């Protein structure tokens, strides 16, 4: 099991909104594949899969806020 984590984006940035997911639960994904996009104010940050596998679950949906260091989804 591998977690897709919202990475550190910079000092003082503690959360970001998930603008969109490029994949859906059940999709097979490759390591390094762009899986979702987080936005803070006017900057957007593309997040990649830390490992290959199947997207098992999404814990922060589109339009929802995730915490830096928090889990956005699970790959199995």
């Amino acid at each position, binding site marked *: 099991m591998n977690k897709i984590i919202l990475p550190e984006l910079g000092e003082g940035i503690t959360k970001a909104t998930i603008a969109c997911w490029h994949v859906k639960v059940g999709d097979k994904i490759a390591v390094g594949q762009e899986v979702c996009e987080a936005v803070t104010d006017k900057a*957007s940050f593309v997040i990649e899969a830390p490992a290959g596998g199947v997207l098992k679950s999404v814990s922060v949906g589109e339009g929802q806020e995730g915490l830096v260091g928090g889990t956005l989804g699970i790959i199995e």
Partner: protein
Amino acid sequence: MNKRIIVEDWGLIEYPKSFERQRALVQKVQEGEEDFLVLCEHPPVLTLGRMTNPQSLLYQREDIEARGVLMTKVDRGGDVTLHAPGQLIVYPIFNLNKQGKDLKIYMQKLEELAVDLLKNFGILAISISGKRGVFVGEDKIISIGVGIRKWVTYHGLGINVNTDLSLFNLIKPCGLNVRMTSIQKLKGHQMAMEDVKIKTIDLFQKEFCS
């Protein structure tokens, strides 16, 4: 710090074509090439970010296109933005892996650079906490929107130099009830785009090169 920035001037270029070229440069920088600073202008276009609120468009699509303004969905967060000739577009394609991987510091540097740029033209601008972009009083003069892939930046600044400001009446820029202004409006005359480009390149080299 970067050792060198490669400057490219793409002139007037359709937004979709420039986006393709940006993506190609992002790939090059990810693969280890030097950083790039791209300058250009776009024919009138509304770019719709992934979080565009339909209410940010104040007219029907047909009415907007009848004014010669194209509409295109774009691969970025945020709401709707307008680009048009007279607006200097600056796309820094920078590798932040070499600069501490801090989005907040990068955004602050862009805002400070934008304020310094306007100071050179006798305009006192400010950045406002919690609002992206640069303002003169309450009017927005420079829009800032940044995308990041593998810590390489794309998108950037839209500097209203001689922009036809009436085009902004088509939208709520960035989804906000904000009035836009330009260097031309504030100075009362057109500003030579070349002068703004030269100063912009100079400031980027000072701020981002060792």
